């Protein structure tokens, strides 16, 4: 089974390590590919990013995708407009309005940690239904659990488990990602699968969250790179 981690921050995002260090570690741990996630600043950076990432990808013979994470609704709108320019579109959850916008947008691939810094889980049954309809995956973020402790950790685990329960009921895709900001926070795929199981997923569901869902996203990336692609559901025939 091929495993992918689609939410990793390098040093030019909020992380601390270079793309090469991250890719080396991910390869050692048994991943088939990763997605380097950046926060959107301006268009001009995409070319330099692409160049750097493709150099590392060729050097290590390892699949690396470029992802952008939107922090605000404005950023999300801008990123949707230039959707063909990069591979994966993530939305940094936490704000309820942004969470809602993310699950309503077909172009979004993953809504990351909707429960971040919240007392509730950041997701309800309506949003779960919308996410299923628009094929937006809800993320289980390992870094959130890793970096918290005691009562905060138990609250986070409870909120994520609640989201998983909703996602299972409404057949919303689930993605398990490390959310690593350094290569030390990257975890073995088996660890991520086990954490998924603890949060209420069956073993095969957890495996799918780490392999089948990213593979579907990769399929979409290939489709999007095709010249005939206009936007989700629209193609030049």
């Amino acid at each position: 089974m091929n495993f992918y981690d689609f939410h990793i921050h390098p040093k030019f995002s909020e992380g601390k390590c270079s793309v090469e260090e991250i890719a080396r570690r991910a390869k050692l741990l048994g991943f088939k590919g990763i997605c380097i996630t950046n926060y959107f600043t301006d268009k001009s950076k995409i070319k330099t990013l692409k160049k750097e990432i493709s150099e590392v990808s060729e050097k290590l013979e390892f699949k690396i995708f470029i992802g952008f994470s939107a922090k605000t609704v404005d950023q999300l709108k801008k990123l949707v407009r230039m959707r063909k320019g990069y591979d994966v579109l993530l939305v940094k959850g936490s704000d309820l309005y942004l969470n809602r916008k993310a699950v309503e947008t077909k172009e979004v691939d993953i809504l990351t940690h909707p429960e971040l810094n919240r007392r509730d889980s950041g997701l309800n049954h309506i949003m779960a239904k919308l996410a299923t309809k628009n094929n937006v995956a809800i993320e289980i973020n390992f870094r959130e659990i890793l970096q918290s402790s005691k009562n905060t950790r138990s609250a986070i685990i409870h909120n994520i488990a609640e989201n998983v329960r909703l996602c299972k009921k409404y057949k919303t895709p689930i993605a398990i990602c490390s959310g690593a900001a350094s290569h030390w926070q990257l975890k073995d795929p088996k660890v991520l699968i086990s954490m998924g199981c603890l949060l209420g997923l069956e073993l095969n569901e957890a495996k799918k969250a780490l392999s089948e869902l990213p593979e579907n996203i990769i399929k979409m990336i290939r489709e999007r790179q095709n010249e005939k692609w206009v936007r989700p559901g629209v193609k030049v025939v």
Partner: protein
Amino acid sequence: MKRLKILKPTLREKNRYISFQVISEKGEEFTYSDLESAIWNVTLDFLGEYGVSKTSIWLLKDCWNQKKQIGILRCNHKSVQVVIAALGLIDRLGDNRITFKILKISGTIKSIRKIMG
């Protein structure tokens, strides 16, 4: 002292052996006791005393390879996922940053020893 009669195989607890490798920052060689205390601390923190009692977790001393930093952890068959998730939460050993790479999960110690060489 008289020993207890060995239970029938069907009545015994079913064990699973998890072999793992510790990846460290500068290739430090950790001892068995370093690792044992880290595993106990994190599992007790994450699962609590009652939770740990249900896992039957044990780090095998004679299987710890200090050079290769490979070891075997024993637990019962129902708590494999819990133990692996808890292992993932260990990110420091003293002042050093570490990661665990899970090599193999097996039902017998014989088959898992093969990969340790």
